[in-house]
C-alpha cells in the first residue's frame, strides 16, 4: 500500500519568492501529525498544494500514490482556515449538501455531534456565533470517513472549554488507518494528541520526529522546543 502522503522535492514560488522549497516528506497511515511553524513558514502553502488548490512550481505531491485530483478529494477531508459555507443556509441543509456531495459522509455522526454540542440543526449559519460556526465546519469535516484529514487551525477561534471538546471529537472520530495533518499555533493544547510533529521554517522542513522521542531526548515539551527553535 502506498503511503497516504508523499511530497517529493516539492517547491512553490510566488513571483520567484520560494514559499516552499525542496520539501520532501512521507506520512504513513494511522497517525496524528502536527504541522508547526511561525507565520509565513509555508504551512498553508503546503496544505493548499496537497488539496490541489495550488500547483507546484516543481516537485510532486502524491496522495495514496495519486497526484491531487477528483479521486484524491474523495479520500481527503479538508478543513480550510476560512469558512466557505453559505451563511444563509440552515445547518440541516448544509448537512444534506455534504451528504449529497461526499459518498463517505456519515450523516448520523454529524447530527449526533451537533446535538452533543447543543447546536440546533434548524439554526441558520448566519445566526450562530463564530465559535459555533467553526464547530459546525469541523463536525462536517470529521463526519467523513476519509483516509487523510487536513485541518488548518482547527481550534483557533474557539474558547478553551470547547477546544477540549473539539480535540476529543478529533480523537473519537478518526479511525486507526486514517492520518490527520493539522496546523496550529496552540501547541501546548494539542501536543498530547500528536504522534509526530513537523517544524517548518522558511519553506523548509527542519524537524520531523515523534513527540515522545522529542520529550525523551530533549526532556522538554514540543511547546518549549518550538519557542527555542523559533525565538525571535
Amino acid at each position: 500500500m502506498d503511503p497516504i502522503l508523499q511530497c517529493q522535492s516539492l517547491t512553490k514560488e510566488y513571483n520567484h519568492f520560494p514559499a516552499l522549497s525542496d520539501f520532501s516528506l512521507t506520512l504513513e497511515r494511522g497517525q496524528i501529525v502536527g504541522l508547526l511553524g511561525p507565520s509565513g513558514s509555508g504551512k498553508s502553502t503546503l496544505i493548499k498544494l496537497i488539496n490541489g488548490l495550488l500547483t507546484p512550481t516543481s516537485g510532486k505531491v502524491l496522495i495514496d500514490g495519486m497526484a491531487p485530483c477528483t479521486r484524491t478529494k474523495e479520500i481527503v477531508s479538508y478543513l480550510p482556515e476560512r469558512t466557505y459555507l453559505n451563511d444563509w443556509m440552515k445547518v440541516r441543509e448544509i448537512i444534506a449538501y455534504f451528504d449529497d456531495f461526499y459518498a463517505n459522509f456519515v450523516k448520523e455522526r454529524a447530527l449526533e455531534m451537533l446535538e452533543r454540542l447543543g447546536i440546533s440543526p434548524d439554526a441558520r449559519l448566519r445566526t450562530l456565533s463564530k465559535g459555533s460556526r467553526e464547530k459546525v465546519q469541523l463536525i462536517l469535516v470529521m463526519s467523513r470517513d476519509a483516509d487523510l484529514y487536513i485541518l488548518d487551525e482547527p481550534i483557533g477561534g474557539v474558547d478553551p472549554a470547547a477546544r477540549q471538546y473539539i480535540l476529543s471529537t478529533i480523537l473519537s472520530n478518526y479511525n486507526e488507518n486514517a492520518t490527520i495533518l493539522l496546523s496550529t499555533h496552540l501547541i501546548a493544547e494539542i501536543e498530547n494528541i500528536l504522534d509526530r510533529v513537523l517544524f517548518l521554517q522558511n519553506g523548509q522542513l527542519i524537524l520531523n520526529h515523534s513527540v515522545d522521542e522529542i520529550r525523551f531526548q530533549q526532556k522538554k515539551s514540543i511547546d518549549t522546543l518550538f519557542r527555542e527553535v523559533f525565538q525571535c
Partner: protein
Amino acid sequence: MSWTLDNDRPIYLQLMERIQRDIIAGVYQPGDKLPSVRDLALEAAVNPNTMQKALSELERSGLVYSQRTSGRFITEDTEMLTQMKKELATEHIQEFFQKMEQLGFSRAELLTLVTKAAEGEN
C-alpha cells in the same frame, strides 16, 4: 476531565504510571477488564497510539494481560500487586527523604517529625 500530565517527560511513561497507580489504588480490581484503548485515550485526552504503547508496556511488565478477542485484563497475581505497591511506597519515601535532606533534616530528626505528625501534633 483529561489526565494531568507533565510536559517534559514522554507521555506513554506517564500513562503507564497513572494506570499502574489506579491498579494499585484499587480503581481497577485484579481480574477486571480495562476499558478499550480508544476509551482510555479519550478519557486521558491523548493519542490512541500513545495509549496503545503504554498498555503494551504494562503488558510486558505483567501487570495487565490481553486475551486476544476480549480485551485487556488486570493481573490476578495479587502477590505481584503487593510487591508493586511496596516498590511504589519505597520510591515515594526515598523522594521524601531527599527533599527533607535538602532542607537540612537528619534522619533522626525526620523520624521524630514524622511520628509527631502521625500523632496529629505539629
